[in-house]
């Protein structure tokens, strides 16, 4: 009697998860993700010519069908340089944010989990890192390790992880007081089991949102460093460097600076809107 009432099988409480037709904005988001993946993985398929090929007879060609983004002062095809540069610009941003997110998550979770004096020490270290102006820090790294993409990468990771550490620490602090964690303790779960099964998975949503938003931020920061000469060095087709080189003749060949700039803008915008989309979709399953 009681059984029939409470154990009624059926899908009345199940949330419907039937596949729906994707909206235009979902299609657009998917297409940009695919386009970025293609830029990173198979630039050779997309670029019409060799990004390092010099041809002085073709210098300063405006955008045409043969040279979509025109050519630069050495006659190199700018579109091909932008395509090949994605690896440096987007690729490095992905490495920066991935490293920062992984390290920051582990660091913040450890601080919250162990608490007490260790937590206080760990979080003061975070404060110190957050207090650094990133340009000054990047210049210091470049000065000691030499200019290059690696120095820029190290500087950005060093300054990016603390925000993840702070966010994850806050989440873990509230999660470990949750009922389901208390229940897991009474089941005899060990500290690592509780963290792995019941605490960290609940932080992934927010980490993922911030990760995606940060990809755009990191791209701006990295191209900015390269633009200032603290990142990639010539002849790398890194985007910030492309714009920096082109600014000398920006008045005669506008396309050499403006079109790569538009690409940086569009890619950043796409990462941001992707992050925003994830944030709005957020919440537990």
């Amino acid at each position, binding site marked *: 009697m*009681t*059984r029939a*009432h*409470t*154990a*009624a*099988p059926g899908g009345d*409480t*199940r*949330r419907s998860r039937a596949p729906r037709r994707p909206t235009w904005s979902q299609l657009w988001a998917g297409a940009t993700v695919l386009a970025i993946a293609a830029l990173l993985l198979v630039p050779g398929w997309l670029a019409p010519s060799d990004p390092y090929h010099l041809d002085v007879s073709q210098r300063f060609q405006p955008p045409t069908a043969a040279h979509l983004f025109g050519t630069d002062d050495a006659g190199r095809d700018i579109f091909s340089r932008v395509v090949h540069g994605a690896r440096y610009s987007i690729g490095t941003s992905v490495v920066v944010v991935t490293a920062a997110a992984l390290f920051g998550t582990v660091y913040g979770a450890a601080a919250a989990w162990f608490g007490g004096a260790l937590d206080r020490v760990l979080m003061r270290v975070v404060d110190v890192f957050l207090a650094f102006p990133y340009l000054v820090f990047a210049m210091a790294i470049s000065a000691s390790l030499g200019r290059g993409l690696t120095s820029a990468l190290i500087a950005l990771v060093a300054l990016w992880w603390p925000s993840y550490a702070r966010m994850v620490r806050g989440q873990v602090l509230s999660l470990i007081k*949750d*009922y*389901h964690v*208390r*229940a*897991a*303790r*009474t*089941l*005899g*779960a*060990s500290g690592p*089991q509780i963290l792995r*099964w*019941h605490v960290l*998975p*609940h932080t992934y949503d927010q980490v993922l949102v911030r990760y995606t938003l940060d990809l755009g931020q990191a791209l701006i920061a990295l191209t900015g460093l390269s633009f200032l000469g603290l990142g990639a060095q010539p002849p790398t087709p890194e985007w910030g460097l492309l714009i920096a080189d082109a600014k000398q003749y920006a008045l005669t060949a506008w396309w050499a600076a403006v079109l790569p700039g538009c690409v940086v803008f569009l890619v950043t915008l796409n990462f941001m809107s992707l992050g925003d989309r994830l944030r709005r979709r957020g919440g*537990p*399953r």
Partner: protein
Amino acid sequence: MAVTSPLLELRNLRKTFTAGPHAVAAVRDVSLTIHPGEIVGLVGESGSGKSTVANLVLGLERPDAGEIRYQGRPLAELLTGSGRAYRSAVQAVFQDPVQAMDSRKTVGWSIAEPLLIHRAARGAALRSRVAELLGAVHLDPSLADRYPHQISGGQAQRANIARALALEPSLLVCDEAVSALDVSVQAQIMNLFLEIQQRLSTAMLFISHALPVVRHLADSMVVMYAGAVVEQGPTEAVCEAPRHPYTRLLIGSSLPPDPERQPVRPPSARREALPTAGCRFAPRCVLATDRCRSDDPVLSEVGSEVGSAHAAACWRTDVPALAEPVRRR
């Protein structure tokens, strides 16, 4: 009951919480005994310290003084090193069944978790054990694939009970386990607890603010007020012949309204500052005397038959009026 050796013994437990200058004695000298297969009810209003007792028994808090013994061995010893044997022998069922399960894990995973932690089963054996446990609490095995928020509160509490039973514990600590449920579902879950006790002879420490629930389930009961035990004994004896005015108040407040009878004195909604000396219940007690306000009463036997284990902590148990419900006309 008294002839068997106790499963769990609490002796003079004390726990004080401090927050800055404030100190709250959540548990003051609580002693109680649970025998194998026995259901002990623990009743009291919110703030009486009953949930702290649960946390102490579950090892989630450490007592400031006193001792908990499980099968004669001190808990402090059982929890250090390989505390896992105790963790599998004593399981908990909490108030909010949905919150007590991880929202990101399926119900089946949650039920399998204790088996994973204690490496009791894996693979196909694990799956069949989960299905068996769901059956034991009268749930459809298909619920294993749902998430906690996709099932009803009653189903979720059954799933929690299934999880608690996975390791075949000798003691279940049920902290307000039916309080968050609908009245009709409450009755079903209470019957499930009785069924478990009869079939698996699992002992239970059943904590609730609702006296009728405890009365229905418990073999013996303990009434707490302001962190201390005010009355304890066999459920029948305590409910039929309560000796402490607070127990009377609890019983009086849970009876159905009857225009002929007026309740003893409605429990004050405002939490008055508890006295620091004498009987903590004195400010609310109709029988309080000067002695009640100065001396702390001790728990002493009140049973009509010698050795009945019915005891109350009150200076006025001699008042004959207490043989009948205290009423004001």
